[in-house]
């Protein structure tokens, strides 16, 4: 079964630290445990989403600025 990184919180998902900054990670990037892959904004406060596994990001399954639920997959990991 494919491995996935899940959103820890409900809110809005961002792939970049700020609108004018590059994304934390691109598809195809290798990640280590603890790497930040995005932000979730919940009630106007921002929380980092950290990888809880090592591997390679195969695909982001939600877009930048999409609404997400807690536990919803954000990225597929190879």
């Amino acid at each position, binding site marked *: 079964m494919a491995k996935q990184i899940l959103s820890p*919180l*409900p*809110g*809005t998902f961002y792939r970049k630290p700020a609108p004018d900054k590059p994304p934390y990670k691109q598809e195809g990037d290798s990640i280590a445990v603890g790497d930040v892959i995005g932000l979730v904004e*919940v*009630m*106007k*406060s921002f929380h980092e989403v950290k990888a809880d596994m090592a591997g390679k990001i195969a695909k982001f399954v939600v877009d930048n*600025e999409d*609404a997400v639920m807690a536990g919803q997959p954000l990225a597929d990991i190879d």
Partner: protein
Amino acid sequence: MAISKLLIANRGEIAVRIIRAARELGIRTVQVHSVADAASLAVQMADEAVDIGPPGAAKSYLNFEAILDAARATGADAVHPGYGFLAENANFADVVEEAGLIFVGPTGDAIRTMGDKAAARSAAMEAGVPVVPGSDDCIEDPAETERIARRIGFPLMIKAAAGGGGRGIRIAHDMAEFEHLMPQAQSEAQAAFGDGRLYIEKVIEKARHIEVQVLGDGKRAVHCFERECSLQRRRQKVWEEAPSVAVTAAVRKRLSASAVGLAEAVGYRGAGTVEFLYDDESGDFYFIEMNTRIQVEHPVTEMITGLDLVREMIRIAGGEPLRVRQDDIAMRGHAIEVRINAEDPARSFMPFPGTVQALRSPGGPGTRFDTMLYQGYEVPPFYDSLLGKLIVWDEDRDAALERLERALAELEIEGLKTTTPLHQLLARDPEVRKGEFHTRWLEPWLERNASRLNS
């Protein structure tokens, strides 16, 4: 032109508050909402509701076109912006009026003047309102700078002209430190903002946050006394009172006159608030800014004056002159408001959206609960964490504090973590009981009382 149909360009408890005022005036209401707010109390209460887009505020509550389209489609003749979102967006106020609609608030130009720090400061000085002592312009010449620093006195803040939100600020406690920090601050400002201009301002230590409510009709303005909002966390107010425990009758007179003077000087229309820092040791107060909208904490003023501020601002927007003279406005008793937020005080006030499994609202004498909650309501994660405001009034402050404790004990919101436990502790705190606090009082208190908030 009297308003016949009012569009509410906001959400949450303030949307509910505006609908109530409109209904009492016989005005029909249109509630615009994002997809995430389709089941909100405001949508249920309004005469009509229009979906204006996705959850993200940028695509819904901040979307000029979607809001104006909704107004056209429903035949609304006025727009109430509430607070936050577009309430202090001068361009939105202009666009609403250009579309032939009434904006319930001041003119775009008044919003623009008060929204610009430098312009607001000069408007205040011209109206004879005291401002925080500082260099009136940016500073350049070192000798001149030293002279200004001595005049202002220490400690003082060195601020980057292009900075903001607390960035680019340094504090100097004496002349030696000042001379040491100036070149650093200048190169840092140049590097961070591409603009090395600096200005300096006195640090007001242990200041209280005092604000004066005003109402204006474009020609004449009146004040409705002051509120004190010194209990703040991360510059966000958590507890507000009217009147202030620290303001004497003589200071109240000067503060109120200043606020009315500024409102009349800019031809202010609608409800507004002039904010001051107040040093209760010296009795000096200094203008900080003017908020050109209804504020979250307006109910404490309504409780002590008996006025309905939201109703008054709608009447003024409809073209009526102010219905009250200054002499008609009296204050009686004491009111306290606490903000009930969906935040967990035991976990650093982490936001806590979720579903309201059960709700028991406080009631009884002198008790008001302004909220958008109902049983089964799912609090969306996309907007701020304010769930409601518990407001109590009683004959004096001690009695109001007792009433607050009683009302807090009645409030039960199951399914969410809220700031209710924080307010229960604050209401019993000896310093809060004596009214001995300032704007930097709450944060160290939270650190000292962390274990009590965890239980």
